[in-house]
């Protein structure tokens, strides 16, 4: 297995939306390598004839009747908002400025 580089971790951190300093990236790279070294053991027994299990219960989608029920009020839904305006969540700019 190839070693985990600082650039690899930087890419993962970008995907996970976590800002990291170069020192953190280096530290995480060495830790990740250590952990992957320990967990790659799963490959020893995971042969192609074994079906994967994604969930302990074998259940399919659960549906309920589509009935209108009381839900949170606007104020309740906004009660934890870091910022709000005009009864809506106020968020930083999402699209590039024109």
């Amino acid at each position, binding site marked *: 297995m190839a070693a985990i580089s600082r650039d690899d971790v930087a890419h993962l951190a970008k995907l996970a939306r976590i800002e990291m300093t170069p020192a953190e990236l280096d530290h995480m790279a060495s830790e990740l390598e250590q952990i992957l070294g320990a967990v790659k053991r799963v490959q020893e027994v995971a042969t192609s004839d074994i079906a994967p299990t994604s969930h302990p219960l074998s259940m399919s989608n659960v549906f309920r009747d589509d009935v209108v029920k009381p839900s949170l009020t606007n104020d309740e839904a906004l009660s934890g908002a870091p910022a709000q305006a005009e009864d809506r*969540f106020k968020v930083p700019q999402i699209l590039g400025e024109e």
Partner: protein
Amino acid sequence: MTNIHSTAAEMASALAAKEISSVELTQQHLDRIAAVDGKIHAFLHIDSAGALEQAGAIDKKRASGEKLSPLAGVPIAVKDILAQKGIPTTAGSKILEGWRPPYDSTVVAKLKAAGVVILGKTNMDEFAMGSSTENSAYGTTQNPWDLTRTPGGSSGGSAAAVAAFEAPLAIGTDTGGSIRQPAALTGIVGVKPTYGAVSRYGVVAYSSSLDQVGPFARTVLDTALLHEAIAGHDERDSTSINAPVPQIVAAAKRLDVKGMKIGVIKELSGSGFQAGVSARIAESIELLVAAGAEIVEVSCPNFEYALAAYYLIAPSEASSNLARFDSMRYGLRVGDDGSKGAEEVMSATREAGFGKEVKRRIILGTYALSSGYYDAYYGSAQKVRTLVKQDFDNAFAKADVLISPVTPTTAFKIGEKSNDPVAMYLSDIATIPVNMAGIGGMSLPVGLADEDGLPVGLQIMAPVMQDDRFYRVGGTLEAALLSKWGKPILSNAPDLAGQK
């Protein structure tokens, strides 16, 4: 005389007989918290006013002759991962500091409906990722048996609160051992119910295919009473099992294991386990034989891969679940000065709001799920999950319940493993297979290790939705141990209020 050292069942009887009021009982526990929690740090939030108000309402209902639930008026501590309306819920993370949920989780709603008095919210490893509470953003909980040691985790605050007589009951969650391991390390009873037996609605999600809510208490019967109060189908949790809850309270009272087959898991014994742990497990086996059980040895050869598979599956699911902490609708927001875009603010917030272990697991999960590595890591881990389930199926074909130690060692020192993630992960080696298969398991205190005088836990496991079986075995063994010791295990723990 009913007091904080009574069992929850005794408290419930005294309340029903009006020998004590819920307000008095609640105040006794709040006083105890005020006296000892400075040393233990089991609680992140104490809701004295809310608890006394709830207790007063129960007393009024009782006075008017209203029919009440069995645990009405008995206090409880709740892990800070369950949403409680209007009460701070942090999951041990800075990213949720100050958040007050606008709704109750189903378990909290059930507790309130049953009149169980909620004292406050307990400390935990951030987002339940850890085995010691050292990953909490709000400081470490100390083990009531030895303040230099951890109480285990992630539900360490709940376990410590019960062991330190700050609450007779507590709620925890268990993803890889987070109820059973702290129960073992603090000398109390903890149960991880069958997956889907207790609703996860309103519980901050870590690894959704493994997470399960469960009870802590000082006796098997108390644990059963709480388990029964929180279990049952919930249409708001799509993974909730729609089937009757097994008769666990009756099973806890049965005190008889004649004819039961108890399987000892070969791979979870001997080398790798502290001598004092193995000795107490061997003694428990003798007591079970004396009570009429038949012991069989079973082999679960794939368990040795379960830990590795867990540390791929759980971080993978976590990397997806924790994407919701994006600073947009609730929780922390950092760096929003008008000049930065949403993605930049998101990344700065997650950098500031998540602790080291959480970042480590998100990055690991992101890696395991990324293209090119998915089959080798996440895919392989899912296959190991199949093999672990097969091992359990084969073992349960030969035995009614399975037993093992809960942990390889007794409580470890604070700081001992905090810089070595892989060593910390090993403390869950015996508990993780249960979560992988979705079955239930109990941790029962079975004595103190000779070398350090600290509690040892026995794990009792039963097939899916047969949780009554481990209550039957646990109740029987608990009675045998109590008659051997002549006093409860916690009477050996230091009297914290007297310590200066």
